[in-house]
């Protein structure tokens, strides 16, 4: 693999000049690798990682845009990413420069752009030269969820398993490390996260027989420091004497082997393609693992550890401190890669250091992040495939009536395979003490009838037909009170809400819809305050920052795709209701609302009008 730097050097000089005027954090910080990124998180002008901060709050202290003036938002500038596939990436903003990455498609797959965050001027772009096999083997869509930054370097994960360090000022490649093999179905779609000088990267592709892992690379050299597998013996999972899971059922040697028949763990799935959060005081990182695969459920009896689980690990060594399995022996493709938001809550009169995990299975988990104890787990969407979570044993209670069995048709399984919520990350406001959650609202019928054909081999597969859950809507944006354990407000959307969200000190929260609307909502009551109709549907992650002109900006990529959007931009036959692993049925009207797109949209406040009657949403 050869990487090519595009027009980097020529623009380097002008970049340095511009960067000098917007350097908000002194270069002295660069000498302390662990604190450089953390310092940027404290500067509300920047958005230095996809989740904004290590706690994954996606909360910004900026309040120039607020509930009273958000209706004046207007386009500041736009930019074309140049590949009309699913745009899931979060732009990141460091020292006045925005870095954004495109999907793995078009003439320059996973191309990276550096733009002046205030004017939109292109500073440089960088394009990896990919392995041609990659597009043919990636599951679902060829998305990228964003870049990372630390100490003057931008970090990129390519779909074909390379992590690349790029010099932020010039776009020059500094190193790249190959972490997996695309020809065996392995891919990378997650945004890397930098913790204590290590770039943390996980893999995707469980359905193709990939064994999940999280890998730490040295940010300066790209050397692999540690790799923790999600299945297999303790030595591979990096479990040792200091591993203290809260629940007895998770104690015992080599459970990543013994909870599987024979050698099933060797291709057991449990990939790591979501979010990583970090608590510097406890010195723990947190992330979730994906579903078990590629075996049928009846060929993988046992709990299938450590799939569909949350790990807490020491970032220095990778060693696991605790783990909790959310879905033992998953039957529904309920990955648990969703974000873990780290907050401190007053619960029953005491302050608890918790993580909040909106489960794919439809339960909102509030856990003690020091110990792995489940404090509460309450349904936030319609759930009938489980009967709740037993807080004594920590185990979810399955509903046998909804167990998919080959040869039987099981109707009305809720939530459907994508779960009540997929990868799309939520946001936490310390002002309202509410979690803002974009999610889907889908049920499914399961039957075995579909003829499949892979590599010349025919088979009868499961046909999964998804549709709107009770109430007839397919998506929801809602605010959840994790202490009262209830929904405070909700907005229903006809299509799944597949974007991330953010919330600000101006009490405004943003999300996008697949039918092309970008919306600003009053974080306190759910009133829609402003919306903008874009060129394509939204599945990206909104971010906000302060420009060099002192103005607050809000940015998001438009361009539908991802798993549910494949129908709109890749011309899956929408007459075939289960085309994209069952999702087409749930979104088959999507082409009536949108086609694919690739536009970065950046908004700021327009001038105040004397007559403010336009302030009302349409």
């Amino acid at each position, binding site marked *: 693999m050869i990487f090519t730097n595009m027009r980097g050097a020529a623009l380097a000089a002008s970049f340095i000049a511009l960067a000098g005027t917007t350097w908000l954090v002194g270069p002295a910080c660069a000498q302390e690798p662990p604190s450089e990124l953390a310092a940027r998180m404290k500067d509300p002008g920047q958005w230095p990682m996809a989740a904004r901060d290590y706690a994954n709050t996606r909360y910004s202290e900026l309040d120039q845009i607020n509930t009273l003036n958000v209706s004046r938002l207007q386009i500041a500038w736009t930019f074309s990413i140049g590949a009309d596939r699913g745009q899931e990436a979060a732009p990141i903003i460091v020292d006045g420069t925005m870095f954004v990455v495109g999907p793995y498609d078009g003439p320059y797959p996973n191309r990276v752009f550096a733009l002046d965050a205030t004017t939109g001027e292109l500073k440089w772009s960088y394009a990896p030269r990919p392995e041609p096999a990659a597009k043919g*083997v990636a599951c679902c869509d060829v998305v990228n969820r964003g870049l990372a930054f630390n100490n003057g370097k931008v970090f990129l994960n390519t779909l074909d398993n390379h992590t690349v360090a790029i010099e932020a000022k010039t776009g020059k490649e500094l190193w790249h490390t190959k972490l997996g093999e695309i020809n065996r179905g392995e891919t990378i779609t997650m945004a890397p996260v930098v913790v204590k000088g290590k770039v943390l990267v996980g893999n995707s592709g469980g*359905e193709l027989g990939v064994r999940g892992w999280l890998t730490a690379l040295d940010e300066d050299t790209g050397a692999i420091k540690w790799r923790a597998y999600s299945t297999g013996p303790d030595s591979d999972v990096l479990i040792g004497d200091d591993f203290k899971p809260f629940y007895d059922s998770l104690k015992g040697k080599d459970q990543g082997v013994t909870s599987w028949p024979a050698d099933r763990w060797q*291709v057991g799935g449990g990939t790591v393609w979501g979010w990583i959060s970090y608590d510097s005081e406890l010195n723990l990182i947190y992330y979730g693992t994906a579903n078990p695969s*590629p*075996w049928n459920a009846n060929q993988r009896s046992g709990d299938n550890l450590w799939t569909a689980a949350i790990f807490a690990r020491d970032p220095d060594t990778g060693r696991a401190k605790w783990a909790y399995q959310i879905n033992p022996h998953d039957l529904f493709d309920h990955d648990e890669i969703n974000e873990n938001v780290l907050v401190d809550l007053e619960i029953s009169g005491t302050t608890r250091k918790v993580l909040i995990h909106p489960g794919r299975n439809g339960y909102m988990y509030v856990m003690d992040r020091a110990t792995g104890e489940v404090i509460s787990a309450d349904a936030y969407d319609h759930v009938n495939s489980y009967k709740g979570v037993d807080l004594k044993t920590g185990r979810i209670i399955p509903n046998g009536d909804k167990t998919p069995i080959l040869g039987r048709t099981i109707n009305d399984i809720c939530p459907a395979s994508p779960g009540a919520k997929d990868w799309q990350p939520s946001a936490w406001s310390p002002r309202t003490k509410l979690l803002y959650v974009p999610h889907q609202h889908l049920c499914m019928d399961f039957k075995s009838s579909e003829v499949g054909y*892979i*590599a*010349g081999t025919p088979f009868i597969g499961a046909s999964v037909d998804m549709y709107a859950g009770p109430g007839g809507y397919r998506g929801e944006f809602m605010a959840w009170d994790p202490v009262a354990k209830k929904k405070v407000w909700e907005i229903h959307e006809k299509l799944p809400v597949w974007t991330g969200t953010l919330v600000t000190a101006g009490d405004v929260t943003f999300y996008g819809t697949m039918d092309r609307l970008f919306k600003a909502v009053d974080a306190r009551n759910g009133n829609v305050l402003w919306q903008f109709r874009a060129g394509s549907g939204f599945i990206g992650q909104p971010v906000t920052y302060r420009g060099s002109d002192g103005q607050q900006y809000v940015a998001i990529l438009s361009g539908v795709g991802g798993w549910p959007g494949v129908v709109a931009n890749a*011309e899956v036959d929408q007459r075939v209701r289960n085309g994209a692993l069952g999702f087409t049925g749930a979104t088959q009207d999507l082409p009536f609302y949108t086609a694919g797109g690739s536009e970065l949209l950046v908004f700021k406040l327009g001038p105040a009008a004397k007559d403010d009657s336009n302030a009302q949403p349409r």
Partner: protein
Amino acid sequence: MRSPVSAAILVAMAALQPYASMAGEPDDLRVCADPNNLPFSNRAGEGFENRLAEMVAQKLGKFVVYTWWAQRRGFIRHTLKAGDCDLVMGVPAQYDLVETTRPYYRSTYVFVSQTARHLRLNAIDDPQLRGLAIGVHLIGDDGNNTPPAHALGQQGIIDNVRGFMIYGDYREPDPPARLIEAVEHGEIDVAAAWGPLAGYVAKTSTVPLTVTPIAAGERFAPQQFQFEIAMGVPKGDHALRDRLNDFIAQSDSEIAALLADYGVPLAENPRSARGGERR
């Protein structure tokens, strides 16, 4: 890319049938195929689907032009539906993503074992299976796996089953063939695999292998172990489908000879989904 084989055949054809192609019709028969999946197809044109494509092109008076794409999830979306080709040479006769022709062969899942072992397996519920190391292909998600993988799990035959990803490692030649080679090398006692692959690898094996159709009763429904295979064209292209149907009807014995050449086990007692169209 123009296949040199097709060019040679066409030159020969031209002498015999100079006006075979209709006026104004493109000369290319655009075929989408996997470049690395013998016995079906490869880039060198060595598969039976390559040979069949040449036969079709000859009949229609065209050149074969290939678009190569690994035959995996998304294959049809990225090839036939993307408008990159007119034809894929092999799909199940009930395949909903494409317009299918009448089936041109019917094969079966088979057991493959070393002949010297004298295993005499023929049924998926044979009690011997509980004590043998059995290899199966895995497709991926729950509910989407090969019929033997389902049927063995249904009987609780688990710890002695070994999974081989149908995708394999695409850097190696013909990745699905690793399953049959594992029998050849004695790594497993028996493979339960789709007939055309098993028959072909067995034919070229250095160790004598026995290939036996798998019998399975109704208790394993809806899993089925026999499939009819047709050609696929874009939905609605009835004109090309009908011409291909004519070709299939007229080329019965040539197709049978081709399949025999590659060791494709043919299933008896075909039950055509298309009623009177069975050959």
